[in-house]
């Protein structure tokens, strides 16, 4: 099949058939009870999935979702209606539902729509959007990852490889006259391998992707790399011991350990938790909350990253947002509602899982900036401790208590990585840990381009990154 290679193949196309006049009418209905702000969010998404296990391509899936959400804000209240029935009467009914939240005031009139004119920089100009490529080509990527893992070692007993790709067409129209679109491609190729020896079994995982085209798997990370790494990790874990339990110095590997910053800092700097004063940080803006060597950013504009977007789900053009500078708390991740109520600038972090969800402040690509230490020196500085390498995930509560689950790591003995370690849980309180970041490496990396963050039941693709970090003491849950 002829493959056309021009980025314009990802131009916005309409799937709704509603006119500007319709939108104007819908916005007027939405504001008819006196809301301050109304918005229409249109989403059309195609998902593809290929799954290979037990040596066969078990299934392929295509799913199409189309729908529209209407939001009205009145003070701190949000009214929301959504529908996947795009007939004008149903859409108007959703607008009436959303409008009902407001009451009393004279209705506002929506501004006339004015499409965003200034070109929005495209952070993901791709060549071969996955949804336009032949299924055979995509199956071949999955098979390559699968076979590589399977052949890596006779101890590999089971492999599973899958490719998930999607393209999301969104359009945001609001009563301030905004009319903006984005077309967001997203792929992830993952491989999961189970190794077995002496009745012991362990699983390894690897993957990659982002807002990229299929060219990524020939240029950046090959299916063979993904399969090899998954197999290698499962074999590594077969030799692993359970970690010791208790407080000890902990060194966090670069890249994957970004999940620490996601949990320990990122969530609690989402503006909604601070506006509601439930985050431990709400009264600490401008204060020193961490060691002065620590700089933390969230940047939705990193090219091709899984967490990136050209506009957020409220149509705001996003910005790289400093959160901590030299250990001082300087910024929050804002959406429109929180920015307005807190009288702060929007940062473009209003995201939603899909058209059925109200946008909320979310992270995108969150990272600790690099420091000055040589990573080797950092490990050498620990006489006895724990090196956390790969993770299953983490969780935080507003009180600042967080955990993260380490799937694979090493013991550190006399400044050297020694026995491989599996299945440990790290636990701490965020401000305490931020002040125990003793050394920061110069080796910043990002974790896998496969991560998804959950908040209030909404999933969002994210990445996080960090350099090698040494935490003076931290509780390691072990055996």
């Amino acid at each position, binding site marked *: 099949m002829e493959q056309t290679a021009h980025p314009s193949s990802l131009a916005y196309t309409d799937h709704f058939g509603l006119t500007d006049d319709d939108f104007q009418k819908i916005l007027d209905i939405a504001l008819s009870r006196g809301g301050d702000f109304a918005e229409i969010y249109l989403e059309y998404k195609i998902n593809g999935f290929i799954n290979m296990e037990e040596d066969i391509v078990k299934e392929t899936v*295509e799913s199409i979702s189309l729908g529209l959400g209407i939001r009205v804000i009145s003070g701190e209240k949000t009214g929301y*209606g959504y529908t996947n029935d795009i007939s004008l009467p149903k859409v108007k009914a959703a607008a009436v539902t959303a409008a009902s*939240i407001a009451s009393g005031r004279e209705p506002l009139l929506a501004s006339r729509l004015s499409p965003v004119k200034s070109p929005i920089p495209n952070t993901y100009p791709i060549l071969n959007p996955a949804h336009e490529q032949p299924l055979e080509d995509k199956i071949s990527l999955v098979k390559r990852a699968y076979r590589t893992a399977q052949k890596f070692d006779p101890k590999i007993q089971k492999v599973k490889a899958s490719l998930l790709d999607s393209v999301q067409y969104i359009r945001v129209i609001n009563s301030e006259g905004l009319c903006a679109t984005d077309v967001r491609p997203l792929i992830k190729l993952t491989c999961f391998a*189970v190794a077995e020896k002496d009745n012991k079994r362990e699983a390894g995982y690897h993957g990659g992707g982002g807002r990229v085209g299929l060219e990524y798997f020939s240029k950046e990370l090959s299916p063979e790399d993904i399969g090899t790494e998954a197999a290698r990790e499962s074999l590594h874990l077969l030799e692993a011991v359970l970690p010791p339990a208790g407080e000890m110095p902990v060194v966090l590997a670069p890249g994957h350990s970004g999940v620490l910053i996601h949990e320990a800092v990122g969530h609690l700097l989402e503006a909604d938790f601070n506006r509601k004063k439930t985050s431990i940080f709400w009264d600490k803006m401008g204060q020193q909350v961490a060691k002065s060597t620590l700089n933390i950013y969230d940047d939705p504009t990193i090219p091709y990253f899984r967490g990136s977007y050209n506009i957020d789900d409220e149509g705001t053009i996003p910005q790289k947002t400093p959160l901590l500078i030299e250990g001082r708390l300087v910024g929050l991740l804002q959406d429109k509602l929180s920015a307005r109520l807190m009288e702060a600038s929007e940062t473009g972090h209003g995201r939603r899982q899909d058209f059925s969800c109200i946008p909320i402040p979310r992270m995108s690509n969150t990272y600790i900036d690099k420091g000055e230490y040589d990573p080797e020196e950092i490990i050498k500085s620990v006489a006895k401790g724990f090196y956390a390498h790969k993770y299953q995930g983490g969780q935080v509560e507003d009180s600042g208590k967080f955990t993260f689950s380490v799937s694979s790591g090493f013991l550190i003995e006399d400044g050297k990585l020694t026995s491989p370690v599996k299945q440990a849980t790290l636990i701490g309180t965020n401000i305490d840990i931020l002040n125990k970041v003793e050394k920061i490496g110069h080796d910043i990396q990002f974790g896998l381009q496969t991560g998804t963050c959950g908040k209030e039941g909404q999933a969002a693709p994210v990445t996080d990154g960090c350099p090698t970090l040494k935490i003076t003491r931290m509780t390691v849950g072990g055996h």
Partner: protein
Amino acid sequence: MPGVATPQKLLDLAEDLVSYGRRKGADEVEVTILDSTEFNVDIRLGEIESLIEAGSRGLSIKVIKDQKTAYGSSSDLSKDSLQKLVSRAVKRAQLSSPDLYAGLPPKQRIDHDITALNLYDPHILELTPEDKINLAQQTERIALQDKRIINSHGSSFETRVIKTILVNSHGFSHAYDETYCGLSLGLQAGRTDEIVEDYWSCSKRHFNELEAPEAIAAKCIARTVRQLNPRKIPTQRVPVVFESAMTSWLLGFLFACVSGVAVYQKTSFLQNKLGTKIADDRITIYDDGLIPGLLGTTPFDTEGIPAQKTIVVEQGILKNYLCNTYAARKLKLASTGNADGTGVAPHNFYLTAGIHAADQIISSMDKGLILIRTLGHGLNPVTGDISRGAYGLWVEKGEIAYPVSEITISGNLGEILLTIEMIGNDLEFRTPVSGPTIKIQELMVAGT
């Protein structure tokens, strides 16, 4: 889409699509339609924070041709786009590999009376938005009267009405309606830098079974303030009591390990353990899809296999894995009616009650931990290993001494099941997976 409105029309649409798929060359076709309406109101500090009301529909298909499978789904229910979806699935199926185990289950009969399962409460449809807003407002208001509560995550009331239609090319064609309602609350207590927090909720199919706002508020307050002024404890091995909500959490992990899908995929430590002793003699666990009115009750699973009562563990012996048709064929077993898409889901999966009062279990510990909440991931079905962040209450001489935080618990599900020493008499079906209070002989608790 315009034109499709009545339930009968949705059933007709599903049947037409099954015939269309057969005409396009599929050997077998299955069509599912979910048609739901949702209402959710969030109240925070007395005011409405958000109110969502919506209806949505989705259709999904499975086609099999020459033992090769493809799936599709769409929320665009126009006939034209659905027919294209089916045609593309039939073509796509040819690119999958032939799989001896693929295919729909043989023709099924639904013998039980669907209405007797009591899944639908018409009263929920009669609640006005004001009724629903009031319930949430009242719940939070009662809680905020307590001086120890410093902030609120808010309270929510939600309702959901769902129609499920399942039609396949073996002549299965059934529909059923179900309702849910839920009331929840989240609270914070303590000083700014020493905040503790917790949630409580109740979810039922029938409105008159829902706990009252007073009950939800009281339970949420008690759960929150009991964590005030936590201490750290040294790392040690001690007996651990799981509150019933924690037992439910542990059973959720067990479910993942008795899943026939995990077993045939070799990702469960309970592989090859059928008929062997995996738990203490006092342990009996069922999965029952037929208890009228419960959250996990359903007339048939997503493949149309009638729900049933399955004994999973009988007096410590593993009796059955929970299977969908595919996993059952792989394992040469029968489906237990637990299909949920390509995976499995529990119906009402529960550990039968024991004889001890929860107080009695706590007072049996000279020194130990009551596990009240866990945090994070750290469950590995391949090995059964558990490692989680945890919150608890420290027990000394049979009495609760103080709350503890910043600890982790670790152990192995296989060992835990064999060392359950006491089982409470407090089983309640609050969630599809549920169990009473239990006491584990010993777990590693990591602290300072």
